[in-house]
């Protein structure tokens, strides 16, 4: 059951090849899902293992699209959390749209004032690993690279077009706390509201 090696191929290596969609690993226990070696792609097109830089720190993938209005509205929240946990956890934006160019992503990062790492995930290896379905959703791994939370950032949106004036739960923040301190329980997984990643296959 263990996913021994999930490889995110280069953007141009397998353009739209009919790779059979692997079954989503919704049912697996998190421990069996521990990534030993994962390769994503940086904005220069270079393969990178996002866990290498973390050196034992928790890793947070935040899945976004340049054209998803809800993930865009989360930019200030994402930036605030990345500042709050700077040095303590590695937070990275993950762009799962294989049609997106790195130039457009760089423009997006600049427009929204992001100062955190950004990765491309054209083959959805990180999507599968993090068991996410929506932008914006997040996947939080503890220092042992165990997936301890996946799902929404908070409960700001209840449905499309139904946003609270401010969120009243803060799942991502709680999950990072749990990743940093094993005495802190991880929140239950709750789906986000936004754009379906499966539309990008």
């Amino acid at each position, binding site marked *: 059951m263990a996913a021994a090696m999930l490889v995110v191929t280069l953007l141009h290596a397998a353009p739209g090849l009919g790779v059979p969609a692997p*079954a*989503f690993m*919704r049912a697996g226990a998190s421990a069996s899902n521990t990534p030993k070696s994962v390769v994503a792609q940086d904005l220069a097109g270079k393969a990178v293992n996002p866990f290498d830089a973390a050196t034992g720190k928790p890793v947070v993938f935040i899945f976004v699209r340049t*054209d*998803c*209005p809800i993930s*865009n*509205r*989360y*930019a*200030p*929240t994402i930036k605030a959390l990345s500042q709050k946990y700077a040095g303590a956890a590695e937070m990275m934006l993950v762009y799962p*749209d294989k*049609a997106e160019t790195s130039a457009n992503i760089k423009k997006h990062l600049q*427009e*929204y*004032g992001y100062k955190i790492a950004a990765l491309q995930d054209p083959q959805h290896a990180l999507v599968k690993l993090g068991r996410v*379905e929506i932008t914006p959703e997040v996947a939080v791994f503890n220092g042992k690279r165990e997936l301890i939370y996946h799902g929404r950032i908070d409960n700001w949106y*209840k*449905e*499309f*077009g*139904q*946003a*609270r*004036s*401010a969120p*009243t739960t803060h799942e991502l923040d709680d999950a990072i706390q749990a990743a940093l301190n094993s005495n802190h329980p991880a929140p239950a997984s709750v*789906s986000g*509201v*936004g*754009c*379906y990643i*499966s*539309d*990008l296959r």
Partner: protein
Amino acid sequence: MSRLGLNSPRIIGVGRCAVLAASFWSVNSWGLGPDAPTAKVTFNRDIAPIVYHYCAACHRPGEAGPFPLLTYQDVKSHGRQIMAVTHTRFMPPWPPEPGTLKYADERRLSDQQIATIKAWVDQGMLEGKASDLPPRPKFVEGWQLGQPDLILKAEKPYTLPASGGDQYWNFILPVPINETKWVRAVEIRPGDKRLVHHANMLVDRNQSARHMEKDPGSGFGGMEVRIESEVFDPDSHFLFWKPGTVATSEPDGMALRLDKGTDLVLNAHLQPSGKPEAIQPSVGLYFTDKPATVHPMLLEMQNDGALDIPAGAKDFVVTDEFKLPIDVDLMGIYPHAHYLGKDILATAELPDGTTKTLIHIKRWDLNWQAVYRYAEPVSLPKGTTITMRYSYDNSEDNTANPNHPPARVQGGNRSTDEMAHLWLQVLPKSASPDAGDPRMVLQEAWARHEVEKAPSIFEAHYNLAEMLQRRGALDEAIVQFQAAASIRPNDPVANNALGGALLAQGDVEGAVQRFQSSIAAQPDYFDAHYNLGNALASQENFQGAAEQFGDAVRLNPEDASAQANLGTALAQLGRLTEAKSHYEAALRIDPSNQLARENLLQLEQMLRENPH
């Protein structure tokens, strides 16, 4: 089975999915003919016509939609999202329930269209045959009605912050015209359309909103704007923009009047995008040389006074009822509540006992408030009772509730207050050619209704008094002005108006006192100085009158009547040379001022007979 479960959008319960899928197949087999069960739904044949008609007007570059929906790839890359948002009817935004009265430009998907979209996504979003693809819709670029005759642009942009809740910003757009113009169409370009949820424009004939600006041209915040008017000049047109609005020309004879010195105030509802954005709206005006011959009127029903919603209340109801004193044609309707609004209903019960639903919104969403115009005017005869019935949800169940935990909310103008308003654009019909302006009959009935509903509200008494005075019912007008002034004893406008009514009735003493109170409350109030001057002159106190007219002229040197009256007061005091210069000033401003001309001739005669 497990794949099916995974592919279902999580926003829709599995049980409901199953029901919807079942209804799709039955609909499809009726809709697509005998070979339907084998035909797969394709983008080119089945989806493109829906998307082109209902989505593309906003979902294209430069418009309100956050991403374009013009090609197969565009639509496919948001396919399940489209399925989810059409299923909940969040998109395309069309909140009113379908009813017997039709609105212009209805943008509402049928159940069958929604089922077709779901089937397309479930079947794997097939593209289909290229020959099935209809031509792309053509849209007019730039100004929709051609180059406007006059373009107004907000002087300074407003910078919308990256985060936070909804913002409301008011831009003041002075209209640089030197003479009265008739406007056949107004096109509102609210700035970046992705950020503006809706915009409402008000005609401010007295530049009354300007004083809210900290710096001239910078605009000011606030969800509701109050436009003050001291004369009977009711609002007549909805000037409203929402995503997808296409500017249209009013029919001949329904033009909007704009005078020199008028401001347009654009109230824009903005939603932060995640990054700071500059918003700088512009407005295009299209003139006509055909003045208005028919005069619509915006009738405002409301019951803010009854809004005192306890924390946790799920179904708090307020109502207002108004019986039409004359026949009207209803042209459009604009319901308005804030974040707690839940179920919005307006009905008309006709004298024959039949009832028409004017609008019913079962899931009110402030973000998608809009003006709705009827496809055909709705004829409502005299004696029709219009009822608004709004319910409010102040519980945790209401996602939009601004208070967490819920708190008591009362009526008011701030976005955290609540409102219960319903504007109706009506075309009042005259009972007979000599019955006068039917708008006044309607306005007086409305004002009387307001006084009965809310006897402690200043504006109710003031507005009724104004209507009574205009038709010469002076005694009753004085009673209402007195009621207004007793609610706000220091209100300069009410005291001045009451003074004016007393003066007209011959109570000079009483009038003088009221004008003095008005000036004490607002020393730079031109009208009160002018009126006090007249009252003192009628008591032959020309010294006092000259002082008051002098103050009036200092406040507004361009007022011909004040200049002429100052001339007369000075002449009475024997200060003929000074008097002459003020008569001359009056005639320079207004060469047709008969009084100034006659008095000047007489004065010149006196100067010749009695030179110094």
